[in-house]
């Protein structure tokens, strides 16, 4: 097959994989950048998004877990993918609000390490709760039938990539752009960025911060939820997916530069494409390459690709 088809395949595969990282990384990054909160439970939000998406879109048979033991072996609303895509972000947004209120607030003034630890613990709890209720085994979350197979568009039809993956790329691009505009160009964004450094001073200026904060966290969470719905059908769905995606997502944030949305996008694309290229060339090194890239970037630019060097006090 011709070289350019192969190159485009690799690039699209990379973009699609990167898109999931980006959705998670942007959320993580704005939460980290503005609330100064290190959320190791972000993967858990992804997990919630995936299961919620699955149960809204389809009906599934549980083969293990407490729900099945209690007689709820058959579960799910079966409403289809579009409703799932619309409902899940709200569900996870609400989860995010609750988390902001009950977890972020109490830990806002504790050291980074405590935040990492408590959210790491929460991530384990969420994962294990899902395991307890839904069982360990993977549930099938198939791609919608209307998005299976390559798109029936002249050129793209020759590329062995399912249509769903194009949707993933598109949805990600739109959402990330919206968030970017919101944070960089609105009063809301300004307040949130100011609150990053000195929340009390913001309040002394007559601005109530609790709501913008909650909203930021909610947006971050909702993005993770969307990632769960669009990413779910690309992977088997089981309780460990959240924590597995967390590591690359965090790496994306860090190599892109904490707090930088553009950085997260750049980082995600770099990761996705690197991985796809390595699989196509030296597949044994595909995973190693990912981390090597991260290491190199951070050694050369410790603040990340588009991160700002810490402002001197």
């Amino acid at each position, binding site marked *: 097959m011709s070289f350019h088809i192969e190159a485009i395949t690799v690039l699209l595969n990379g973009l699609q994989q990167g898109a999931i990282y980006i959705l998670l990384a942007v959320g993580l990054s704005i939460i980290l950048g503005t609330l100064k909160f290190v959320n190791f439970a972000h993967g858990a939000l992804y997990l919630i998004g995936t299961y919620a998406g699955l149960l809204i879109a389809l009906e599934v048979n549980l083969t293990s877990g407490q729900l099945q033991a209690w007689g709820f072996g058959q579960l799910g609303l079966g409403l289809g993918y579009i409703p799932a895509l619309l409902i899940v972000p709200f569900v996870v947004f609400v989860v995010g609000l609750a988390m902001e209120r009950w977890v972020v607030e109490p830990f806002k003034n504790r050291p980074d390490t405590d935040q990492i630890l408590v959210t790491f613990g929460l991530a384990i709890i969420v994962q294990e709760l899902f395991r307890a209720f839904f069982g360990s085994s993977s549930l099938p979350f198939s791609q919608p039938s209307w998005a299976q197979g390559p798109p029936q568009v002249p050129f793209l039809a020759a590329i062995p990539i399912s249509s769903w993956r194009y949707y993933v790329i598109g949805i990600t691009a739109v959402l990330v752009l919206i968030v970017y505009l919101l944070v960089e160009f609105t009063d809301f964004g300004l307040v949130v960025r100011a609150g990053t450094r000195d929340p009390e001073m913001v309040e002394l200026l007559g601005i109530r911060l609790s709501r913008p904060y909650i909203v930021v966290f909610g947006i971050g969470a909702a993005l993770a939820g969307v990632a769960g719905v669009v990413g779910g059908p690309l992977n088997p769905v089981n309780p460990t997916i959240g924590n597995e995606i967390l590591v690359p997502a965090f790496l994306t944030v860090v190599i892109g530069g904490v707090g930088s949305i553009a950085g997260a996008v750049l980082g995600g694309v770099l990761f996705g494409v690197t991985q796809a290229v390595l699989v196509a060339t030296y597949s*044994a090194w595909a*995973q190693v390459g990912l981390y090597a890239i991260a290491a190199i970037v951070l050694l050369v630019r410790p603040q990340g690709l588009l991160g700002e060097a810490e402002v001197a006090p």
Partner: protein
Amino acid sequence: MSDEPAAAADGETGSSFADTVGIWMPRGDELRVMTATAVVLAVFPFVFSRMPVVSDLLQGYQSLATLILIWGIFALGFDLLLGYTGLLSFGHAAFWGGAAYAAGVFSQHVSGSPILMVLAGTVFAVLLAWFLGFLSLRRGGIYFAILTLAFAQMMFYMSSSPLAFITGGENGFTGVETAELFGLFPLESELPLVLETLLGTWLYAFVAVIALLCVALGYRILHSPYGMVFRAIRENEQRAEFVGLNVWRYRLMSFIISGFFAGVAGSLFVIHGTYVPLSSLYWTTSGEVVIMTVLGGTGSLFGPVVGAGVYLYVENIVSGGHPFEFVAPFWHLILGLVFVVTIWVFPRGIWGFFRDVRDYVTGGED
């Protein structure tokens, strides 16, 4: 400390003595701590796995007792970094697993002597810690956590595929060949006489002696200038730099020290299991040692060891059903809950909690 002249006089006689006998002379409380540790180590396997009634309640077993000590050493070293220097590493699996592979490969190609294996594994871990520390200590906090995580994951994927010809990849390293201790005693054989009842196997005795040495070393480090400098750096890095301390090298040193402990533990792990699983390099292993340390209590010498015990107990006994049938499937969930509650309510962990209780009780009596 409160009696100023006495302390100074003590210091002077001590230093002249140290010149002749060496710096290894126990000082201050060291002897007491070591003795207490030795006693606990000596009765632990008996109480845990053989003592009538108690061991039935605990449901312990010999090999778990050994494993607890091994992870205890790992956690103890980890706490020197987390609890004292304030650096949270999510990549200590690299040293644990790296040392295990190194010791395993060493036993296959050079010598199966347990002592030499521990040496080989530890040297490897220390060199690795030096190298990775050099790379990841450029920034603190979250960056450090993520960088260490990235490097450890890189090692994991290296040994899972490109280096699989050495490590066995996903199959794990199966070529471990442990020889007899001192060329005489097979490790899994039982000790003579009353020692058998107390300690059980040679393996346990071997691990316990090393654990004792590790405790002594840890205690000494904390009471050397290093301990103080580590805390100072955590407190106020900039100020430490501006009194003329090379913050970077001290941090590197504390990273290497904790790598050293992880290396000792990792080597013992391969001696104990005669097998190196690939997952020993996976980030969940790093996560486990983090949980153990925090659960037990950061910033204390024995807290992490207690944490290791509790964690492994839940992981191996509670998860195994009888007599915990009801909660067994949820062991991981339970650990997660306990972990979160600990951070939330008792940031100083189990050990810190008991110390607070003790202080409260004794304080009440005064």
